[in-house]
């Protein structure tokens, strides 16, 4: 089917990528049928606040919705919520619905997202052992988050540390356990790890790194302690697991669509089947600013691929591909990340971590590839642009705080 001729589009998944795709399709002039199928009951909603303001009870559920329900009616977008899609029938171009029936499509967008990696230890199925991915997860967990209670968080990644910050601010006794020798080991440098470990410790979060969870103990079906491999017992009232996410690629894989740690897509978010697109956490995509492919677990990626898929389906010019970006809120610290630091050979600290306002730049072969900016928007925003332009910068230029970041960026771009 030539681009721009679809008359019936089905989107499987109802997260950020799906919400963006339907908006971009309508904005782009698509007037045909559109059905969004999601397995959760709620209207498409934002996930980032789940481990931040929403968990703390500062934000109502309604404010998480991308659009009010009237918008979908107005835009003639059919919402099939609480509906699972067990199978894609590519030969007949239709998706099967969990409660029976089929939906035909000219174009299919898979926005199936990701799911938390499950704890694989004895006791993982006890009561009060939680994940943090969906509204339902937070609804189960938050009534238990009462001052004075104890929580053990497994995994010191962004989710684990954001939840630790919220729990601590709510007055819980918080212990975080991490297999790696430092917090945030998978995603950032030792400089940042040390800074964040210090911030949490200062507020009374107990962080144990380089430890292995052996199993969870329970009483009457409810978790009562986390037990480490060295025998240490951590008595607790609840456990939160934050040990990473896995792409929901099975639906595509079983339909014979190429997958490899994610649904493989090209720059237009198209899969190995020209009628099937994929967007968001479930994909493995070209990372054009980094000369490789990979998975991005982020809002930026979901929005961008939603737009890319819509443009390709409508036969419109490919929207620009931004440098990957992320953020994390913990206490009063806003961390903004631009780029991907994996494989850096040099890091440069700009500012003093003791002031709680600083940035760490990452370079590879003298080219800027990423920044972790703590309470430092200029460093974040400048780096986004500099990565796209492939700027080469001397470490001493980046660390020179007497020159404003805006000026450094302008000089590098010249």
């Amino acid at each position, binding site marked *: 089917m030539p681009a721009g001729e679809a008359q019936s589009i089905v989107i499987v998944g109802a997260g950020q990528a799906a919400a963006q795709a339907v908006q971009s399709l309508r904005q782009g002039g698509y007037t045909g049928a559109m059905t969004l199928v999601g397995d959760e009951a709620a209207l498409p909603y934002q996930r*980032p*606040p789940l481990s931040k303001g929403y968990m703390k009870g500062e934000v109502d559920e309604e404010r998480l919705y991308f*659009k009010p329900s009237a918008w979908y009616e107005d835009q003639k977008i059919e919402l099939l919520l609480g509906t699972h899609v067990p199978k894609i029938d590519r030969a007949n171009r239709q998706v099967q619905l969990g409660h029976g029936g089929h939906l035909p499509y000219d174009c299919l967008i898979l926005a199936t997202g990701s799911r938390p990696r499950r704890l694989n230890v004895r006791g993982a199925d006890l009561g009060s052992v939680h994940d943090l991915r969906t509204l339902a997860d937070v609804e189960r967990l938050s009534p238990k988050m009462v001052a004075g209670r104890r929580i053990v968080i497994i995994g010191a990644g962004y989710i684990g540390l954001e939840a630790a910050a919220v729990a601590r601010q709510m007055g819980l006794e918080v212990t975080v356990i991490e297999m790696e020798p430092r917090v945030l080991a998978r995603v950032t440098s030792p400089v940042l790890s040390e800074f964040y470990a210090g911030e949490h410790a200062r507020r009374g979060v107990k962080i144990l790194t380089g430890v292995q969870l052996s199993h969870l103990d329970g009483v009457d079906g409810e978790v009562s302690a986390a037990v480490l491999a060295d025998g240490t017992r951590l008595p607790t009232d609840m456990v939160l697991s934050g040990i990473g996410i896995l792409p929901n690629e099975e639906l595509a894989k079983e339909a014979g669509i190429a997958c490899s740690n994610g649904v493989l897509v090209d720059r237009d978010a198209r899969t190995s089947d020209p009628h099937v697109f994929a967007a968001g956490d479930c994909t493995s995509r070209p990372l054009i600013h980094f000369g490789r492919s990979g998975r991005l677990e982020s809002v930026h990626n979901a*929005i961008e691929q939603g737009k890319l898929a819509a443009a390709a389906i409508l036969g419109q010019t490919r929207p620009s591909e931004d440098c990957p970006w992320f*953020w994390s809120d913990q206490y009063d610290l806003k961390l903004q990340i631009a780029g991907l630091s994996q494989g850096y050979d040099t890091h440069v600290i700009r500012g003093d971590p003791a002031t709680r306002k600083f940035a760490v730049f990452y370079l590879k072969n003298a080219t800027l590839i990423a920044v972790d900016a703590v309470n430092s928007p200029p460093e974040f*925003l400048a780096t986004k642009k500099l990565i796209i332009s492939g700027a080469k910068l001397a470490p001493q230029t980046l660390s020179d705080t007497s020159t404003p970041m805006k000026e450094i960026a302008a000089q590098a771009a010249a």
Partner: protein
Amino acid sequence: MAKITFINHDGTERTLEAKNGMSVMEVAVNNSVPGIDADCGGACACATCHVYVDPAFLAQAGEQQEMEKSMLDFAENVKPNSRLSCQIKVTDALDGLRVTTPESQH
């Protein structure tokens, strides 16, 4: 409650009823006002909800925090009445507010 008028860069106007406590960005996004991307959903993390506030309302729109100031410093076509709309909370005092959206957020 406040009535807020959004003016597109091409001059098209739309007046919307806004509930107190919401952000001006949320009012715009919920009503599909063009020109506001708000990629981060209001976390003051992305600088894609830049607007120009009617100078008569700058005081009522509230003080800018340090984060917002430095984010705006990097936005395109910044003017003295530039704000990030996710950081403006709707109050009765904003009744009659007029905000203009820029041509692009990037």
